[in-house]
């Protein structure tokens, strides 16, 4: 690997290994609700969730989005994120096991001359269904991520 660093072209970024979280619990959901300030009862109140047509309370979508944020920033650095767009696809239920994965979409030089990387992140349930996807742009520090 050291040979690659002597060239002027930065080494391509390699996504981290998949990260598995869970089984997630109602306590995880409630802890996130308290931290975020989103106290929508559909995520903890059984009666409210049933009245809305659900079998049980389910996770705040921003919880699994936050997991993807953690996964991405541990790889590329929290100070380097410039955009983070999340799409909510499937609900997450107590007992689910979640796996975060990342792919590099594009590496390029932005107008300001700094290296950037666009990545796609997916939080997948144990069923194989994608709960949340996210598309993020990070500044790549000189020498690449993690250095």
């Amino acid at each position: 690997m050291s040979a690659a660093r002597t060239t002027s072209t930065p080494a391509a970024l390699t996504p981290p290994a998949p990260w598995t979280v869970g089984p997630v619990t109602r306590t995880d959901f409630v802890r996130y609700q308290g931290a975020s300030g989103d106290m929508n009862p559909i995520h903890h109140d059984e009666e409210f969730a049933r009245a809305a047509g659900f079998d049980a309370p389910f996770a705040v979508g921003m919880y699994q989005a936050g997991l993807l944020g953690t996964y991405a920033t541990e790889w590329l650095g929290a100070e380097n994120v410039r955009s983070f767009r999340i799409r909510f696809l499937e609900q997450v239920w107590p007992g689910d096991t979640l796996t975060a994965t990342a792919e590099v979409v594009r590496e390029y030089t932005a107008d300001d001359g700094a290296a950037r990387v666009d990545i796609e992140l997916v939080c997948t349930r144990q069923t194989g269904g994608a709960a949340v996807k996210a598309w993020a742009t990070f500044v790549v520090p000189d020498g690449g991520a993690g250095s």
Partner: protein
Amino acid sequence: MADPAAVGTEGAPFRLDVERGKIREFARATGTADLTGIDAQDAPVSQPTFLTTALHWQTGDANPWPAVKLDQQRGLHAEQEFTFFGAPPRAGTRLEGRARISDIYTKQGRRGGEMTFAVMVTDYYDESGRLVAQAKMTGVETARPPKEDEA
């Protein structure tokens, strides 16, 4: 039912202090096992989705979202985006947030039924008046109560 007249509704400016303890709490709540990186810094940088904690600050007339009148039992969070014009704010930063309803539109759902989308944009300025971040929330109201397989 969402009210199209809500477009343009602005919330009162609100203060959001980016706090070290809140960043640490948010890290724990979003699966960070090793907090030593945060603990080693006086002013750790906030997480990509941290500005969702505006919900703690945006009380009263700072939050224009209720003007949309989305049905809470048929309403879902469809998309959320955060844009940072530089590094995300660090602990110790005092922000002013200003939220507005920017768009309401309808689409045909894949399985029939009209879906109504509403978009709220919140701009965050630092103490020098510089725009440092923008949050964009898209909510959706389905024609009937959502089920697991079509969320």
